């Protein structure tokens, strides 16, 4: 039982998270375990997590996408551009924004799956292209977005900000889909053994293209959400997001070679990173020490994970 738990990253990371949170609560009883602090942590990682769910999907299928950060920026800027300069109504602009994200995903997916372009270079190139386009449409950034657009990310439900709800919904829906539908389970086959998946009657190319599209769509949604939260669209949004998200997803149990990972792992990975950053600030670590300590903690966590796995699988 215990070794089963410790071999599933979702549980082992969950355990680490809870332990860390408990200890921190004891050390900083007045500042850490407050409703405001937790809801703020969640709010700040909502964007990352939504993108991470798409990235988890890609990693399960054995691919990854470096252009998600740029997609976040482009979709936000493009939607704002339509609303601000052309007075396009909010719902229409949202649809257009999401559509543009979808097209980017389609391009990536088509070139990678059907034309066999190296995914690393394809998505890296797309990252540059889309970032350039975001600068092109938004210039200095676009302010004064419509009230209803801002309301998407700035409203609250039951005292909790909407982005948190969106994040939980995304994680919930995709967890369900990945556990229960044939369509999404195919990604485990593709990531586990692409050739075998093909021989099992799975249209691998098509599914891979869809994966990039879904991931881009989620990144697009995150971009809209972020500019709605900011009340402005900035072309610099989502910079460095790709590496942050891939880190979170791998922490959450995925591998670069594919076939492994669970959707809740994306949330847990992001939560872990958010929690560590929060604790470091609370314990007054600042400046370059933050990066150093974050790095050490990441390594230590993975090392612990491997250590426990070894220990408990030896016993079993």
């Amino acid at each position: 039982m215990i070794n089963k738990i410790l071999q599933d990253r979702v549980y082992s990371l969950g355990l680490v998270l809870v332990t860390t949170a408990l200890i921190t609560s004891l050390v900083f009883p007045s500042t850490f375990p407050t409703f405001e602090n937790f809801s703020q942590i969640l709010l700040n990682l909502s964007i990352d997590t939504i993108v991470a769910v798409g990235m988890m999907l890609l990693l399960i299928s054995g691919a990854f996408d470096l252009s998600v950060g740029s997609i976040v920026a482009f979709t936000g800027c493009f939607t704002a551009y339509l609303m601000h300069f052309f007075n396009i109504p909010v719902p229409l602009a949202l649809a257009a924004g999401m559509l543009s994200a979808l097209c980017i995903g389609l391009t990536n997916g088509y070139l990678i799956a059907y034309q066999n372009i190296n995914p690393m270079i394809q998505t890296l190139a797309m990252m540059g292209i889309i970032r350039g386009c975001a600068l092109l449409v938004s210039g200095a950034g676009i302010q004064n977005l419509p009230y209803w657009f801002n309301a998407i990310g700035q409203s609250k439900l039951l005292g909790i900000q909407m982005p948190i709800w969106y994040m939980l919904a995304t994680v919930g829906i995709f967890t369900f889909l990945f556990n229960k539908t044939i369509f999404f389970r195919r990604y485990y086959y593709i990531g586990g053994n692409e050739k075998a998946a093909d021989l099992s009657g799975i249209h691998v190319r098509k599914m891979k293209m869809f994966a990039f599209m879904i991931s881009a769509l989620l990144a697009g949604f995150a971009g809209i959400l972020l500019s709605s939260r900011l009340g402005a669209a900035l072309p610099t949004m989502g910079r460095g997001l790709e590496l942050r998200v891939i880190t979170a997803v791998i922490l959450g149990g995925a591998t670069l070679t594919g076939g492994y990972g669970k959707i809740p792992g994306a949330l847990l990975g992001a939560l872990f990173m958010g929690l560590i950053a929060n604790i470091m600030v609370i314990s007054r670590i600042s400046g370059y020490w933050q990066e150093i300590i974050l790095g050490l903690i990441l390594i230590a966590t993975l090392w612990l994970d491997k250590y426990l796995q070894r220990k408990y699988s030896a016993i079993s």
Partner: protein
Amino acid sequence: MPHIVLSHITKQFPGVKALDDVSMSIEQGEIHALCGENGAGKSTLMNILSGNLQPDNGGIFLDGTNLRFSNPQQAFAHNIAIVYQHLSLVDSLSVAENIFANQQPVNKWGIIQFDALNHQTSLLLKQLNIEEISPRTLVAELSPAQRQMVEIAKALSKQPSILILDEPTASFTDKETRTLFDILKTLKKGGASIIYISHRLEEIFVLADRISILKDGKHQGTFNASELKKDELITKMVGRELKALRAGSTRTTETLLVVKNISGSRFSNVSFSLHQGEIVGLAGLIGAGRSEIARAIFGIDKIRSGEILFHDKPFHADHPAAAIRERMAYVTEDRKNQGLFQEMTIEENIVAASLPFVMKSGFYDRSKARQISADSKNRFRMAASDLQQRVINLSGGNQQKVMLAKWLLTQPDVLIIDEPTHGIDIGAKYEIYEILKTLAAEGKAILMISSELPELLGLCDRIIVVKKGTVVGEVVPPDMTEEKVIRLAT
């Protein structure tokens, strides 16, 4: 009208014509065997029939309609199922999900019903007599033979009307083979057409109704099994007479390797010894732990207790490199994952394990590598266009030869071979037996793990039987018989 007609099929690969104008037909409800040497084009033909490859020329007729499959999915739609020669399972998923890949049972909302999935899987596993595997087990935890079973279950789960089996019994013992044959006969009664490829000729005569023979990509004819004699079949396949196996034992009394009471994960208290000049068989059911014992001796897995003497000196390999240095070699059974560098050339594969021996200076000598591997290619009669061909493009049997060549190049004193004739044609098998005999005559010792009992009985000086990780007995001539071994093993 025949159920399936393959008409004038031609397939060219860079450097080889794998199929040359092959035409044959398969009747409804027959078991049709396909025979031929390694590289004759059997797998290629079946890959074409299952939509995995497209022919350059020619067509497939199913019940009279001309079909063209551009991918496996289209062949599925026509109820064609295939068990591939190279296993194609997903390690990270459970047995149940592998068997019902992409066709998991769902309710009317499209939601996967895992209970039904596991239930249907256990029924299938029961049918195949492998109840010891749970539907929830990860495929990564199965032994090669068990995987092969799962692969067969996967094909059966589709309830195919056309079933293709490409060397399904290569790592099976008698027990599994019999189960499989029962199932195939039931399917045949139900009207399914079965195409069966195997290098175990006994099986073919037990099972097949008709036999088609391929040689160098050309169809040599189709015969009724009852009218064909084994020798005729061999002559048609190989195109030459096989030499009789060299008789007689070269066993000496000099011990070379002594294994004393070793235990490790999945085996315990194993003791035996190997003498110079002898070939010792290691028999057992699949999953008995034979491979594990070999792995531990060779330094891949840890030995928890016990002692090994090699050349009368204590021997403890903490890594295969140490074992190789002491002149020990281990030919793995899983050539795809552990044996070969699939994307590399034949030449690079052959020299892989002996680089420090053949190039003592530490510098890579290309011409020497070329010459050595050319020698090996001739010695093993590999069907390959040239040495720079990538191993992944070789036929199964030729891949096996590459692996053997690689290990023999290390000039081992003790050679452990795990399923050495896995997927090798009858001609090549005799060549390998001959090579093993020669090695033994040179004073080497050979430990041979095989699931093919006749092979062990024919070749070995004695047979050690393993059951559930322990040595349960040893059979030596004169009463080295099939029943004796099986009785000990079960």
